[in-house]
């Protein structure tokens, strides 16, 4: 999964900005040749006379969508590494309604007004000035409804999550819906705009068929499972695992949790029963089987200094979890060396409540007996980092993430 490219580390910032400038150039060029610099053409959309806006927008969306998800399915593009607009439901809907009103009154949207202004359309220039003023006004008034604006937050929510459908089904569905809208739009143009549909180019049927065909391919190849992604990534990532560069000691975990420069998220992937018996304080319980469903949340929560540490009784389940996180490109993932057993061996030696049993061996057994399911209320669950000044070989190295946090219009 080499794409998207880590442009900044690959070619440096000036060239990265040049790439974005070129993308913008192509964007402006295509908007202009489609007639989006002309407010009359844009406004005609809302009187059913000329549905260029609908046709261009939805064609662009479905073309980009089938290409993106083909590339994802083939393993060329990492869906987790591209920006998917997070859902803030109500600010999005209310903002959208306001924009719709602005669209029909002003005749543009922000992108198209740039193109209009660039081609000396004076109404476009006034629209851009108005837009700048509106943006300024928002910046000055956001504080009065800050809580609402940051509310109804659903994170990286996709249509696949909403409908509980596989990616391929959603892709095919969206293509068919768009084609139906195009058909309906052409009928409206015929009725309200007096357009002769016989003069429309025949190639549009071929293009529609091609889109359905590519969408069907996406349906067949589907989205890669984490296991498949891991087989792609294994040659690159497995050496670090085998060289034990990602297994951090209990001492390093404790020191990192106390380190203000890091945000350590400790993920306890054991069954809930084990978690209730004993767990490291501030560890979050996500049993291994439930981890795949939690991946989007982990992506939404990460900051530049977030470190994920997976914990199990020994290392086996944690290693499985680590492979899953790595395959899903969750950055800065580590394994607690020796798991909870090693943690208690390090910090629980003096805790009279916890008794060691002879190591039974086997998969993910816990080598201690607890008097009660006290969770993190044991002394060993939250050792004082200042009292335990243990030496360790530091292994955590923060990786620079791709710059995707800016996102969309953000």
């Amino acid at each position, binding site marked *: 999964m080499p794409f*998207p*490219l880590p*442009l900044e580390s690959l070619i440096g910032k000036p060239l*990265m900005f*040049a*790439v*974005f*400038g070129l*993308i913008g*150039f192509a*964007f*402006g*060029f*295509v*908007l202009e*040749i*489609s*007639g989006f610099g*002309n407010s*009359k053409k844009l406004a005609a959309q809302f009187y059913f006379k000329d549905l260029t806006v609908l*046709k*261009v927008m939805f064609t662009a969306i479905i*073309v980009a969508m089938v290409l*993106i998800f083909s590339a994802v399915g083939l393993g060329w593009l990492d869906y987790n*590494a*591209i*920006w998917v607009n997070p859902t803030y439901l109500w*600010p*999005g809907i209310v*903002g*959208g*309604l*306001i924009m*719709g009103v602005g669209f*029909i*009154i002003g005749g*543009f949207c922000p992108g198209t007004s*740039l*193109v209009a202004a*660039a*081609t*000396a*359309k*004076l*109404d476009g220039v006034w*629209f851009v000035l108005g*837009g*700048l*003023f*509106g*943006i300024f*006004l*928002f*910046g000055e008034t*956001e504080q009065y409804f800050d809580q609402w604006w940051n509310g109804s937050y659903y994170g990286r929510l*996709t249509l696949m999550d909403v409908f509980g459908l596989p990616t391929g089904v959603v892709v095919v569905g969206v293509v068919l819906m768009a084609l139906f809208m195009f058909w309906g739009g052409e009928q409206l143009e015929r009725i309200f705009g007096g357009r002769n549909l016989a003069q429309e180019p025949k190639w549009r049927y071929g293009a529609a068929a091609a889109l359905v065909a590519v969408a069907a391919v996406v349906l067949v190849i589907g989205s890669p499972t984490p296991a498949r992604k891991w087989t792609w990534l294994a040659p690159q990532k497995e050496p670090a695992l085998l060289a034990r560069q990602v297994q951090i000691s209990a001492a390093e975990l404790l020191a990192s949790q106390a380190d203000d420069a890091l945000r350590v998220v400790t993920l306890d992937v054991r069954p809930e029963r084990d978690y209730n018996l004993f767990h490291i304080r501030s560890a979050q319980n996500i049993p291994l089987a439930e981890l795949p469903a939690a991946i989007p949340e982990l992506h939404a929560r990460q900051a530049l200094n977030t470190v994920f540490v997976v914990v199990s009784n020994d290392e086996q389940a944690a290693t499985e979890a680590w492979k899953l996180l790595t395959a899903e490109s969750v950055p800065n993932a580590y394994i607690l060396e020796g798991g909870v057993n090693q943690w208690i061996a390090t910090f629980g030696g003096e805790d009279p409540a916890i008794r060691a049993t002879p190591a039974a061996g086997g998969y993910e057994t816990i080598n201690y007996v607890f008097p009660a399911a006290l969770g993190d209320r044991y002394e060993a669950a939250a050792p004082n980092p200042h009292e335990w000044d243990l030496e360790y070989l530091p292994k955590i190295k923060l990786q620079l993430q791709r*710059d995707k946090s800016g996102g*969309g*219009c*953000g």
Partner: protein
Amino acid sequence: MSVAVQPQTGSQSDKEGRTSFWKRPDFWKRPEQPYVHPYLGGILLGIVLFLAFFITGNGLGASGGLNRLVVAVEDMVAPQHVDRTAYLLKMAGGDKNPLDDWVVPVVFGALAGGFVSGWWSGRLKRETNKGPNISVRSRWMFAFIGGGLMGYGARMARGCTSGQALSGGATLSAGSWAFMFAVFAGAYAIAFFVRKLWN
């Protein structure tokens, strides 16, 4: 960009010699070309959008870039005010440069791309597009008001037609699809009442 626009360069072979090429009247008044077919425009736009995601991981954007321009000016004029406003602080607090963001070159690129395309196709004309029943002055005023609503709404929705509808639509973001239908709903709900502006 291989675009189905045939340049009809009439008198490029003239021998005026001394006049610089950009001073010749025919350099700025190229023959006007028709727009490309909407579906072709959409396919090209979709390819641009896909390449943006494929190469950079980001989609397209416009209002975000304008937002950062506004904040940059505010930061120049009143830096203390920026430091006291949480929303602005995120973009321009301390020594953060609000223009240091991918969406800024996209905006300047879009201006340049629109300009070159308009010039190439002979649409680089100073004019005001409006309905037949409204004066030029009113059209400007409504453009400013509409732009203001657009700018305000786009920031509230965390993105405009490009950054939310196109980019989020193609990556199947649930919020972006809800947003998109809200935009169309808002416009259709009002269209009848402002029909004098356009018809």
